[in-house]
């Protein structure tokens, strides 16, 4: 039974993730006054890469990079409950907690970084360097906000946090939400924090050495991963969801905001983004934390 549920969760995340990617490309196209690709273009791309006749590898650790990334994404997904106040579609979340999920979120990228390092492409290492230099600044406001809401809810269990919100935390504690949102934009790889994979500067960064099915696996995991992150954010700040319709609505609103924001802004250099993240969102989140827990 639980296995069936996990499989369904995976399929939903895979489908919705690719649907959102298609919407992302279409909406960005509209921002740029273009027609945009078909809705399922990202899905076609990933299947095409699976159907490539060959791909180049650099030894066994190179294989493990994308594989760890994929496993990390799926494991993360399983530890995030889709709905609050029900055990349906809660996956394995009762065995973990928010700390586990926070760490699982970075497990995949770090595993992939090993694959990138093995590939021996200096541009890949450059991308990873950029990513890791930016990572801690990116995580800080998110951590502060998450710590505050864990303390407010008196629990580190994601479904309990979701259920604890009579008014959603995004409205009750807007400063915390704004701080976390900046981090979230970076976690989704959107401008202005998308310097990691800059195609022309660093030859698309971490992805530069991956071809064929390696790239296909990375694309598929990115769809799953995106959906997992959106669901996590909805659970933590937007009051969770009670049905698929509510979940899709809330995740889509969040996603729409993130990609609109991303389409409007240029790209920060790595030191600039660290500087910005450590100054503005962190300050906002700290003030939010003090206001929220002052008693």
């Amino acid at each position, binding site marked *: 039974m639980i296995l069936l549920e996990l499989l369904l969760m995976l399929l939903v995340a895979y489908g919705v993730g690719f649907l959102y990617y298609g919407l992302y490309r279409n909406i960005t*196209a509209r921002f740029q006054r*273009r027609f945009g690709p078909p809705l399922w273009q990202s899905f076609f791309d990933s299947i095409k890469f699976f159907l490539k006749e060959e791909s180049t590898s650099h030894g066994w650790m190179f294989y493990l990079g994308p594989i760890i990334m994929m496993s990390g994404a799926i494991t993360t997904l399983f530890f995030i409950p889709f709905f609050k106040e029900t055990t349906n579609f809660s996956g394995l979340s009762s065995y973990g907690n928010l700390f586990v999920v926070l760490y699982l979120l970075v497990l995949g990228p770090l595993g992939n970084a090993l694959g990138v390092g093995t590939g021996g492409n200096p541009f890949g290492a450059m991308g990873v360097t950029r990513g890791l230099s930016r990572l801690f600044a990116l995580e800080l406001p998110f951590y502060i906000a998450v710590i505050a809401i864990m303390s407010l809810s008196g629990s580190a269990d994601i479904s309990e946090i979701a259920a604890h919100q009579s008014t959603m935390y995004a409205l009750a504690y807007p400063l915390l939400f704004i701080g976390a949102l900046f981090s979230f934009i970076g976690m989704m790889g959107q401008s202005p924090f998308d310097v990691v994979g800059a195609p022309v500067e660093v*030859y698309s960064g971490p992805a530069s050495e991956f071809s064929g099915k390696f790239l296909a696996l990375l694309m598929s995991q990115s769809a799953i991963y995106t959906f997992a992150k959106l669901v996590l954010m909805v659970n933590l700040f937007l009051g969770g969801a009670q049905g698929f319709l509510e979940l899709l609505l809330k995740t889509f609103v969040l996603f729409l905001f993130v990609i609109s924001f991303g389409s409007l802004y240029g790209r920060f250099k790595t030191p600039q983004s660290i500087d910005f993240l450590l100054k503005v969102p962190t300050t906002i989140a700290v003030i939010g934390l003090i206001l929220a827990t002052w008693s």
Partner: protein
Amino acid sequence: MEEGFLLEQKTLEGDLNSETSHQSSVDFLMNWFRKRSIFVLAYGTGCGAIEMPPTFTSRYDAERLGIRGAATPRQADVIIVSGYCSYKTLRRIIRTYEQMSNPKYVLALGSCTVNGGMYWDSYNTIKKLEDYLPVDMYVNGCMPRPESILEGFIELQKEIGAGKASSWQKYEENHEFYRKNQEAVLGEKVEPSYEADWYLYEGGL
């Protein structure tokens, strides 16, 4: 009645789907995915590269046909040789082409790739690209405008869909012929110095 942009899009897509051929359903599906998603290497080899930005950006928007840019040869399906090709560039083109994963296609722009064009007696450009790399599709003109490039892409997509675009197999089969021609202009040591056995390597996971 549809008109304007939507009509154009419909015409283009209808054109794309018009090709029917006798393939097994697995091959049909495989080629369908391949034709719907084409990653073009962002590598401007000659003067024609100037026509590529408008093709891919808002004015002509190649992405509506599933065609988009890729940063590295590992991710790319198509390499565009955009016009004249000096020996220096040829070395890089060959290197890049050999790093792309099969199946891969070559799109050649302009007259220069056909017979040298206005560089027909130049001392340091190649005249016939076909002697050095297998070409899937030529787009004529000097330079071809973005409309022509899109047209070329659609023709290429049709061939891929029909399973006819197989220049990469030709390159493997006639590897010695291409290598001899390449060495003739680039010297003994064509970098990278591939051995055919590596190139036809089979195995791996």
